[in-house]
């Protein structure tokens, strides 16, 4: 699944929203005009609506909680009572998935590929975005449109040419190949967010650095990069999710099971252990936990990524 920042589709930004503070962090946060005490500000629907909203939260979460609780039960226990409580906690399913089901290697592969690709696209996109934001020559406007066109490209449809390109470069069945591929497909989004961010920084900073004798590279690494850290976090965190979850590319481009990433490893494991429910649940949890952890520590960056372009 490709993730296109919202707002690209219509080519027009929405009016300033109160989610602006979640953006890349540069928009001045306007004081909330809407005091809680004001009569018109009573929540619509009152208690009923509150119940509905929390009820819906339960609908969203209960299946995920069932996944976690089932993973801590033994298979026999699960079959006799699917809705039972996970007491006493059993870690047997995790042991099975981790060692017998080689989730240890799937996990490591996913981590290597995802972190490598995120690092690659963030580094090259930061350099490019800085130049696009600062250089005035017309060729850069053209390059910027070229990069942004990539936001709408359904890259999965190019799987055949990518397959033959990789075949020619010896990158079939290679984790490095996936890193390059995902790194490249992350460039448009990262360039989009970072260019916007660099443009908001005052040019006096660089002029001062240049007067002090700094080279363009020094200005970039020592002055500019530290200033865009919030945007770097948004880009890195937000790119992590689709790469971690991607299925088609590793399915087609990897052969050796020892190199499988989690989603592909999961299909193999599910195919071979479809009746070992608790071990499958453990596999699902292993695949999901890093994302949940990431979400908990970086909700702000993820929400900013999802609404990027709508909060300009």
């Amino acid at each position, binding site marked *: *699944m490709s993730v296109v920042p*919202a707002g690209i*589709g*219509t*080519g*027009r930004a*929405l009016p300033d*929203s109160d989610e602006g503070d979640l953006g890349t962090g540069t928009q001045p946060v306007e004081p909330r005009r809407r005091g809680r005490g004001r009569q*018109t500000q009573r*929540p619509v629907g009152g208690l009923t*609506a509150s119940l509905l*909203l929390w009820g*819906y*939260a339960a609908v*969203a979460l209960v*299946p995920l909680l*069932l996944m976690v609780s089932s993973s801590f039960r033994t298979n026999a226990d699960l079959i006799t009572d*699917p*809705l039972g409580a996970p007491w006493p906690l059993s870690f047997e399913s995790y042991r099975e998935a981790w060692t017998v089901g080689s989730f240890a290697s799937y996990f490591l592969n996913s981590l290597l590929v995802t972190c490598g690709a995120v690092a*690659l696209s963030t580094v*090259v996109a930061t*350099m490019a975005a800085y*130049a*696009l934001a600062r250089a*005035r*020559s017309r060729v850069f406007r053209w390059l910027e449109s070229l990069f942004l066109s990539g936001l*709408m490209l*359904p*890259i999965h*449809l*190019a*799987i*055949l*040419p*990518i397959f*033959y*390109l990789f075949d020619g470069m010896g990158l079939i069945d290679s984790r490095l190949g996936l890193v*390059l*591929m995902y790194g*490249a*497909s992350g460039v448009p989004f990262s*360039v989009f967010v970072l260019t916007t961010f660099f443009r908001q920084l005052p040019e006096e900073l660089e002029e001062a650095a240049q007067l002090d004798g700094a080279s*363009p590279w020094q200005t970039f690494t020592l002055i500019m990069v530290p200033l865009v850290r919030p945007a770097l976090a948004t880009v890195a965190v937000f790119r992590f999710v689709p790469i971690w*979850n991607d*299925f*088609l590319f590793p399915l087609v481009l990897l052969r050796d099971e020892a190199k499988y990433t*989690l*989603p592909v490893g*999961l299909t193999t494991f599910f195919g071979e252990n479809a009746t070992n*429910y608790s071990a499958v*649940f453990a596999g*699902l949890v292993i*695949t999901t936990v890093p*994302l*949940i952890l990431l*979400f908990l520590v970086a909700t702000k960056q*993820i929400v900013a990524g*999802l*609404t990027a372009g*709508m909060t300009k």
Partner: protein
Amino acid sequence: MRRRTGLLFVAPALALFGVFVLYPMLTAFSYAFFDWQGTTRGGFAGLQHFTTLFTRAPFTTDLPRALGHNLLFFLGTMAFQNTIGLAVAMLLHRRPRTRRALQTLYAMPYLVSPIVIGYLWTLLLSPTFGPVNQLLTRIGLESWALPWLGDPDTALWVVILVSVWQWIGFPVLLYGAALGGVPEELSEAARVDGASHSQTFFRIILPLLVPAIGTVSVLTFIFAMEAFALPYAFGGSTGNPAGSTDFISLLFYRTAFDSGATDAIGTSSALATLLFILIFGGAIAATAVLRRHERTIAG
């Protein structure tokens, strides 16, 4: 910044993007217009592969069926996100204290891999041990405890509903952001003039949300047309049971990698080209309509 320095800064990104995104994307189309013997490219084939898609089995049956499923998938998602999703966003909007927490909870399934979601629901809906049917039986609805994924009549709806469940946090988030952009003065003024809640909603707020609804619709369309991992987890690459959960991407995958036909590359590239035209055409048409609408609002 001098031009040469700037180009040096852009070069690595351009090289990476050019080689691994632009070049494959552009050649993807050319593949569809050549003869293929296995992996060897032959002469120019014109539109021959496209005619194959409309005249040869299994495409004559599989392609319309898969396309229908993709469209149903899109329409089903739209129906839920523009009613329940929008209502949830409206209700959340007036709850500044709990909004962030609830939005976060709603968005959780959206982050989970579609493969995980597919297998999770396959297990939850399992006819032998699945907690869902177990629960239905316990509350006295035995007749509802069906083999949801084994029956061609219900399997597609399971895929669609599960996808709605996973995706809806995203429209809720975006509608929330858009609602934040509707000036409070407008609805207050309407209420002072005696407009009811529903009048304020339909006459003031909804028209201002159209751009956001449009954006979300375009993204939903792209998402629905590309659906691959979720149906793969539910029904494998053949859309089990009996092709009832087949989608265009699955048909493409089978044609390209599983069919063993000598001209597999040509036909599957033709299919990819068609899908690309559909996605891009749909997105561009929708965007054009939206722009016109926005001009009407603005002017």
